[in-house]
């Protein structure tokens, strides 16, 4: 009697489990059949009325039915969960080709970049990096560099004079004197920075630009050392082997003074419009430090000698990126600056 009842219940429930369409319906069946007050529980209540032999048989049947139904329920439940997960994941579709929100990377000014690159190069060669003020004394900017008042060389550098009697430095060379006093011989130093010339501004002339002054002082520093050093340095800067030549140039703070030319990187010396068909491009002034300048820096010119050079950072930036209007560098236009 109970056996029949049990098997009918199990079969009917199995059919219902197979037929449910929602997880809620499945749960309702579980409570109705397998719950504490469910139908199977009711059946087991009636077992007390049975003989012990019968009880053993029915008990086994009961457990088997329970196990079967639980398995069926679990299987269905898992299926529902997997379907739900799949549906959720499907809903979570994302278009990853859409732009990422938030802020992108900013960019460093090209002068900052080239300055850092060249500073690193010099530091690797044992040079100290020094800084100097934008406003300088007339003495440091001119007299200490062997350019006394009313010297015609002052004409080479149109100067912004200031109300306090000082001036905006026309070159980074004043840092030479500051550096010699600070470091003492032997020394290797560079001083990158902003310099000023009182000139009309156009596409190729600026009143504010960037230079890098370099100096090495040691015993017996010679012109041959200078040539070697500049060739090595410029090859590193231009990332290729460069050919350099020195020719006489007049700068009162060096003796002898040179203009350093590099063989044109566009035509390799064959002649082109960039080098005005000469095969050479004037790049930087340099020379052996004038004994008067060494003396003013507290260094005995009989014991030490040195070389100095001035590298135009603005010019290098313009060469590297083929910038044809110098004014863009300080124009603050993000359309230009975000390109670097």
């Amino acid at each position, binding site marked *: 009697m109970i056996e029949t009842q049990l098997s009918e219940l199990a079969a009917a429930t199995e059919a219902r489990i197979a037929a449910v369409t929602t997880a809620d319906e499945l749960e309702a069946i579980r409570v109705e059949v397998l719950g504490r007050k469910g139908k199977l529980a009711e059946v087991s209540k009636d077992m007390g009325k049975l003989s012990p032999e019968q009880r053993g048989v029915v008990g086994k049947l009961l457990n088997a039915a329970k196990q079967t139904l639980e398995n069926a329920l679990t299987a269905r439940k898992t299926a529902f969960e997997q379907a739900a997960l799949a549906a959720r994941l499907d809903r979570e579709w994302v278009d990853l080709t859409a732009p990422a929100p938030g802020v992108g990377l900013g960019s460093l000014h090209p002068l900052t970049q080239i300055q850092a690159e060249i500073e690193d190069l010099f530091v690797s060669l044992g040079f100290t990096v020094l800084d100097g003020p934008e406003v300088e004394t007339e003495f440091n900017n001119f007299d200490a560099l062997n350019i006394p008042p009313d010297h015609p060389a002052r004409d080479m550098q149109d100067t912004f004079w200031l109300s306090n009697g000082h001036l905006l430095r026309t070159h980074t060379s004043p840092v030479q004197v500051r550096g010699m006093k600070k470091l003492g011989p032997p020394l290797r130093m560079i001083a990158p920075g902003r310099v000023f010339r009182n000139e009309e501004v156009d596409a190729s002339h600026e009143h504010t630009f960037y230079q890098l002054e370099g100096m090495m002082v*040691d015993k017996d520093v010679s012109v041959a050392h200078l040539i070697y050093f500049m060739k090595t340095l410029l090859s590193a800067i231009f990332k290729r082997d460069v050919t350099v030549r020195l020719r006489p140039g007049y700068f009162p703070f060096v003796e002898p003074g040179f203009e350093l030319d590099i063989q044109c990187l566009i035509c390799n010396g064959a002649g082109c419009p960039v080098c005005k068909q000469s095969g050479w491009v004037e790049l930087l002034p340099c020379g052996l430090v004038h004994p008067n300048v060494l003396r003013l820096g507290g260094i005995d010119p009989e014991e030490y000698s040195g070389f100095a050079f001035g590298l135009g950072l603005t010019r290098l930036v313009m060469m590297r990126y083929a910038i044809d209007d110098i004014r863009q560098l300080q124009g603050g236009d993000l359309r230009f600056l975000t390109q670097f």
Partner: protein
Amino acid sequence: MKFSYNWLAEHIDGLTVPPAEIGKLITMKTAECEGVEAHGAHFDHVVVAKVLTAEPIPGTHLAVTSVDTGRYGVKQVVCGAPNCRAGMLTAYVPPGHLGVTTAKLRGVDSDGMLASAKELGISAEDEGIIEFAEGEPGAAIAGCTADTIVEIDNKSLTHRPDLWGHHGMAREVAAIAGRPLKSIPADLPEGAPAVEIEIRDAKLCPRFSALRFENVTVQPSPLWLQQRLESVGLNPINNIVDVTNYLMAELAQPMHAYDAAKLQGGKIIVRVAEEGEPCPALNGQTYTLDSSNLVIADAGGPVGIAGVIGGGPSAISDATTTILLEAANFHAASIRKTSTKLKLRTDASMRFEKSQDPVNTVRALARAKWLLEQVSPGIRLVGGLADLYYPLPEVAPISFDLSWMRRKLGKPDLTAAEVTAILTSIAFGVSEADGHFTVTVPSWRATKDISLKDDLVEEVGRMIGYGNLTPVPPLVPSVVPPLPPERAYLRGLRQLLTAQGYTEVYNYSFVNEAQATELGLPIEDHVRVVNPIAQGQELLRTSLLPNIKRNINDNAREYESFRMFEIGKEIHARGQELPEEIPHLAAVSFERHGDGVANLFELKRLAGTIAPSCTVEPAEARPFEHPFRSAKVILRNEAIGRLFEFHPAMVETGRAAVLDLDLVKVQALRTAAGKYKPLRRFPTSAFDLTVPTAERELAGTVLGFIREHAGSLALDVRYLYDYKGDKGRSMTFRITLGAPDRTLTGDEVTAIRSQLLAAVAAKYQ
């Protein structure tokens, strides 16, 4: 400065270097050549021609001529010159030269051109076609030759007074080419000085030399002289003035010719000008002078501004029959000062300010006498040389050892013979024994150019050719250079800013008055530029903000939102001392739309990444700031900068939040990581606390109050959120408690909580 190849060649015995190569040689050994150009190549083809007939073309100013050109035959040429007439001798330019072609003018064939002196490049004369007194049709134009002009950069001649004339440059070329230089005699006949000279200050005028001539004919110079001056950029004027200019261009000695009849008294006085003394100059201007200007004066007053320009009334005119010819030497700095002050740079002042050689004056006069006799037939010298000379202190002979010269150049195989040969070739006196040199300096190099042995390194080096030195790596000690911490810091800061999306701008160190006024920056606080050449450069910036504001408005036209920054120096006046230069950061976050709050908080977060543990405190707004959106940024109780939004009147197109930090202070107050703290081993407890507050209560203030009253076991007090409802505003905080050595009991936590609640209730209810 322009140099004529022909002129240089006249000074060198057997120059064989071709014109095309001379520029490069000069560039490599002496001074920078800016260009080499053919001049007057047409003189190889232009001929003297006789006008046979000249018939007017009706209705035009033109005439059709028939000319006998000798070499080219009889030609028909149309000519518009007013002086064109039958029988005259003029110049004929065949087609193919000076742009002349065979053409039809008013329907008449014209085969070639009759040319003016200007068209021929002889002088500026263009009133009519050139007219010759004599000559055979077909002959070349006498005295006019094809030439090559070498242009040298004036800057590279700054230290070389001798190279401001052809003779000096010829000396260089001769040395480079290994040919002898021809000398120029300085002999003058003996005679009583033709004029009395008084020099009041020998420092300002070390030498004044003069000659007097009579029976002078003032007329145009011969063509060769005109063409030569024209070729180097000097205008032919008349034979007398042309001679002075010729010698200036040849010997670098500026000269001046006075009409002797116009000079008053028998004496020339070289003195400083009196205050306010006028001097009418030959350019038609009258200059008002002072005691910083040196003048040449006669009994009647200044007749010239020494070394700069001659006087007007005593200038050479067609009526001049006697002249006084001056060749003097003046102190370079004084001449430069005068010409700068009068804004009058002349060919003479340009030369004198380079420290000319006083020895040169007499040689120039001797050469002038020789030349005047050619260009003014019948001219006669009156008396002899007038010459007052206070020689400059001599430059002592320079000594050096061969070994020293070798070390300076880095050329160990340099020989004594090479050094001697080079220095001798450029006129130094050399004596050498056992590698020890004693060198005397020629007068034209001794005025300023050369006084040290180092100066001789250049002479030897350039003549050897720097390309002949073998590059040698320097031997230097290997040391780690001290990296200045400021530079490393600024570099890191720039990286941080770009990583957070900010793009770097560079602005000028200048602002204009309007910009400063607009931001309420007191004009008088700025260091002022005394001589700006363009607008916008009057003041040095005391803040990065005026230019940043301009950047914002410029870029707002192109972008809906952007972030940018500048690291630059504020320049603050300190009286006569050098100003204080303080590096600042100005960072900007701009949005065209929206309420701007997010931009401000973004910059607050940026401040926190640059200066961790900094706080923000409301501050009274400056005129350019949003009155309710401005604050000070505080680090370790010190203000390090400012966080604000620009006032809408400043940035009309959107919201611009700005962070402005003093980077000296940020660096000084920043702390390095200290000793490590062990990690917590016992659990913490936390509770939330909601505080009802006034509408504009500051979260920072309430947070501070809670921190202060939460006791020593409060590990963290954190602002969670803000609520604004019908009953007003409230803020909720989370307080985390913990002890380093145990777990707090429930009673302990409750006690702390009750205590804090009571304190908060007392203050905020």
